[in-house]
């Protein structure tokens, strides 16, 4: 296969994932001393940072009191991600800093895994322990038996470390547990991923179609801001959701779809748009390939056909198709973000991508814009050692479309029975609570029990730290420098994160930790700068700025090199696909043995007395990460289970009652959850917000509050194309009294 796609894939890997590139060892220009950096004139009343409470990375200012204590966090007006306004999690970020339940010092476990008996150790001892074990694993099995699970800004440092060590098993759960299928679908269709922040031009769109996306409850700052602007301009919002979400409350059309049938709806829309000649003919002719095959494929997918599957009346399907067409090209069929639902998610988002292509929205105003970013060089480091095998060797032929390592595959590869040829023996887990983010907890725990080494780096004593051999406490984003934020957006921009306070207790920054480990592993040469400030200053000087300037302004934006935010009229665009065109018909998928065009496949329905478990977000929390944040627990300290009144009447449940949930495999929730009887949820489903039900007693505010949806997700529908873990095929029933026997299990 041509390497054009591969090339694009590598270079669009998340911001900071490749802060260091391979190259010859050059003379890195270092500042004479760290003190020089500190002596630079800096406004002490406020310091710039960008938020780490979620992935949006809004840039802002941390204001301090006259005594120098962190007071509040406000958005940076120059920042395109936040436009000067932080979301509730960002504003509540002070709580992350002041949380007294934070990890304080490195820990090494003294009893069996999971018993959570640790002893406090110095950083040196912790590093010695880890490096010793890593060297053991390397000599016994090879460095390829180490794996890294990571999330957030520290990823680039630990990725550098792991690659330097000799392993390519680096997985971000945000791929296979979240947005992986969508990026593969868009890569296959348009040759480009949707990026983060998504390149959706919501503020100028005339029609926004949300397939299950619950903007307004998922607090993607920029998306909500732009949606609000669009509402002011009179946008038509079409929401497709079995639940009456906040977005549905603001929609002109709410399609209360039967869960798991979205592909049928999308195919019938494609049918309507093609057979009524609603599609953008010029665009399709100029930029797309495979139209005729697509037209033939959707021949029978009429609205009537879709009605029988989705329960959406045909005239509504027709009306909404017309709305989209009228708005074209300023229409967005939103690709969503967390799309790992039923295992055919790549194909579902392919249908969304195809729909966008037909409506001509990719590259057009009100559709999807072309992002631009700063080109910041990385420090020169030696070439990484070649990794002789990786997780793909554990499961040859599996997930061929995956362009990133699949976290659940890495976990499976850590269970000895699964693949005698190759096994992963050690994990470093950075800033991700695998117990909560990976479904099928039993499998994850089984893998953990078979490891020789488990290191967890975190700010809070999350569940994963309870299973670790070594717990390394990181300081929060308010106490450290980090990589430059070079996220793509309408204009290239840089954002600086600098500490507003010294690390509390005995915590250290990710850079510090990664470099400390590297030194013990004799890999210090891959971390040439002793301090991040030095690296940042060097990098900034290469692009015409400096650390001092960024400390003053926080965000630096520059104009695009060309006026190419959207396609110009009649512009000849070459897409990074194999054919150079937008592939409505995916030859790439076909070659790999998968459907080149999406097909509807019926999914399992809940058995009698069971209800489909649907989960989502609340705008005041980021998954389980903020459950203990004092500012945010004030807003929401537990999740509720939404039950339709018809169902609650049948079961005799009342509003405010606490019940346990039991799923189809007999797993019962650890803690009871409060019932909300509401018409907003369909009678065949129940809904709850993800991220509660914590079992860690050390987190005093959130221990035992609400229930964990991850625990109830034991059946995983894995997407055969790229390994995404579909989580919405679990069904729960209600238990009103938990007997002693069940509690013990």
């Amino acid at each position: 296969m041509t390497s054009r796609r591969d090339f694009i894939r590598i270079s669009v890997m998340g911001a900071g994932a490749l802060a260091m590139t391979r190259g010859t060892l050059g003379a890195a220009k270092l500042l004479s001393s760290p003190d020089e950096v500190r002596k630079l004139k800096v406004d002490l009343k406020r310091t710039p940072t960008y938020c780490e409470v979620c992935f949006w990375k809004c840039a802002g200012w941390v204001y301090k009191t006259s005594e120098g204590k962190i007071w509040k966090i406000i958005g940076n007006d120059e920042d395109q991600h936040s436009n000067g306004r932080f979301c509730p999690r960002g504003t509540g970020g002070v709580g992350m800093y002041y949380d007294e339940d934070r990890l304080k010092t490195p820990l090494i476990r003294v009893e069996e895994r999971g018993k959570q008996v640790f002893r406090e150790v110095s950083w040196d001892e912790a590093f010695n322990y880890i490096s010793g074990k890593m060297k053991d694993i390397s000599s016994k099995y090879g460095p390829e038996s180490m794996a890294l699970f990571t999330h957030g800004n520290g990823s680039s440092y630990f990725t550098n470390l792991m690659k330097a060590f000799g392993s390519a098993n680096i997985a971000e759960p945000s791929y296979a547990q979240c947005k992986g299928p969508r990026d593969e679908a868009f890569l296959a269709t348009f040759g480009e991923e949707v990026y983060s922040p998504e390149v959706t031009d919501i503020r100028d769109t005339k029609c926004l179609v949300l397939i299950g996306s619950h903007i307004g409850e998922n607090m993607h700052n920029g998306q909500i801001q732009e949606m609000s602007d669009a509402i002011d301009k009179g946008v038509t919002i079409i929401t497709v959701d079995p639940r009456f979400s906040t977005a549905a409350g603001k929609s002109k059309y709410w399609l209360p779809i039967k869960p798991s049938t979205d592909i049928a709806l999308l195919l019938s829309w494609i049918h309507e748009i093609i057979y009524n000649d609603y599609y953008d003919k010029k665009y399709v002719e100029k930029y797309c390939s495979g139209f005729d095959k697509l037209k033939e494929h959707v021949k029978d997918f009429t609205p009537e056909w879709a009605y029988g599957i989705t329960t959406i009346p045909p005239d509504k399907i027709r009306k909404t198709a017309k709305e989209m067409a009228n708005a074209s090209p300023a229409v967005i069929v939103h690709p969503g973000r967390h799309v790992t639902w039923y295992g055919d998610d790549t194909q579902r988002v392919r249908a969304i991508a195809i729909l966008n292509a037909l409506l001509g929205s990719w590259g057009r105003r009100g559709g999807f814009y072309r992002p631009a970013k700063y080109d910041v060089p990385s420090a020169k480091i030696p070439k990484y050692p070649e990794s002789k095998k990786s997780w793909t060797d554990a499961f040859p032929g599996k997930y061929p479309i995956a362009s990133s390592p699949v976290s659940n595959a890495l976990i499976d590869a850590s269970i000895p029975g699964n693949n005698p040829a190759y096994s992963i023996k050690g994990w470093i887990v950075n800033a991700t609570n695998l117990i909560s983010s990976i479904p099928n907890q039993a499998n994850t725990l089984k893998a953990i029990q078979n490891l020789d080494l488990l290191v967890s780096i975190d700010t809070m004593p999350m569940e994963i730290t309870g299973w670790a051999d070594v717990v390394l406490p990181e300081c929060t984003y308010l106490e450290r420098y980090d990589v430059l934020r070079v996220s793509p957006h309408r204009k290239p921009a840089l954002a600086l994160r600098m500490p507003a306070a010294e690390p509390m207790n005995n915590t250290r920054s990710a850079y510090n930790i990664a470099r400390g480990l590297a030194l013990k592993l004799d890999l210090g040469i891959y971390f040439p700068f002793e301090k991040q400030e030095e690296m940042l200053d060097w990098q900034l000087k290469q692009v015409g700025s400096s650390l001092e300037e960024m400390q003053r302004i926080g965000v630096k934006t520059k104009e695009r090199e060309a006026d190419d935010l959207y396609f110009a009229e009649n512009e000849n665009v070459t897409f990074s696909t194999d054919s150079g065109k937008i592939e409505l018909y995916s030859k790439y998928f076909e070659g790999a043995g998968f459907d080149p065009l999406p097909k509807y496949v019926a999914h399992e329905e809940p058995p009698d007395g069971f209800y489909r478990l649907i989960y989502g977000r609340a705008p005041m929390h980021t998954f389980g990460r903020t459950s203990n944040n004092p500012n945010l627990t004030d807003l929401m300290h537990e999740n509720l289970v939404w039950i339709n009144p018809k169902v609650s009447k049948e079961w005799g449940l009342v509003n405010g009652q606490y019940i346990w949930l039991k799923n189809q495999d007999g797993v019962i929730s650890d803690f009871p959850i409060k019932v909300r009887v509401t018409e907003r949820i369909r009678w065949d489903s129940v809904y709850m917000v993800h991220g509660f039900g914590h079992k860690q007693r050390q987190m005093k505010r959130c221990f035992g509050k609400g229930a964990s949806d991850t625990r109830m997700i034991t059946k995983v529908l894995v997407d055969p194309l790229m390994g995404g873990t579909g989580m919405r095929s679990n069904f729960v029933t209600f238990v009103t009294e938990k007997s002693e026997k069940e509690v013990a299990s």
Partner: protein
Amino acid sequence: MRYAMAVDTKKCVGCSDCVVACQTENNVPHGFCREWVVETMNGTYPQLEIEIRSERCNHCINAPCVRCCPTGASHFAEGGIVLVEHNKCIGCGACMASCPYDARYPHPDGYVDKCTFCIHRIKIGLAPACAAVCPTKCIYFGDLDDPNSDVSVVLKKRKSKTLIPEAGTKPQLYFLI
């Protein structure tokens, strides 16, 4: 000069950013809030309607809290903003009992506290913390006596309502519907 605030319920998503921003800006103690968000929903699936409101003290023109305060601690400041003078407040609780919106709360330090329309920010030309942070920009604030202020303009353009007008308090927090 009559300060007032308008909240656009069509744009409010209930994220409660206003609540947290107010908390950090004004050092509201944990467990207490000066603002809150209310969701009202009615209908039967799938004919459903939802209204989301960000609420706080209404700084009423006919404020029962000012009327009932025995020491004058609750008073009208510039622009009709209702404030509590901490050193005059004896903590009797009359104002908390007299507010039909239950907008006041007993501060752990003894006095009674509530939304101040961030008067310390207005004085230097900044918007109240909640209006300044709201990601949907659904909170408008300004002087009703100035026809060009944000709030005057938006109230002229849109239909609005206040909460329990029949309580006779003449609240100055409007909800655009």
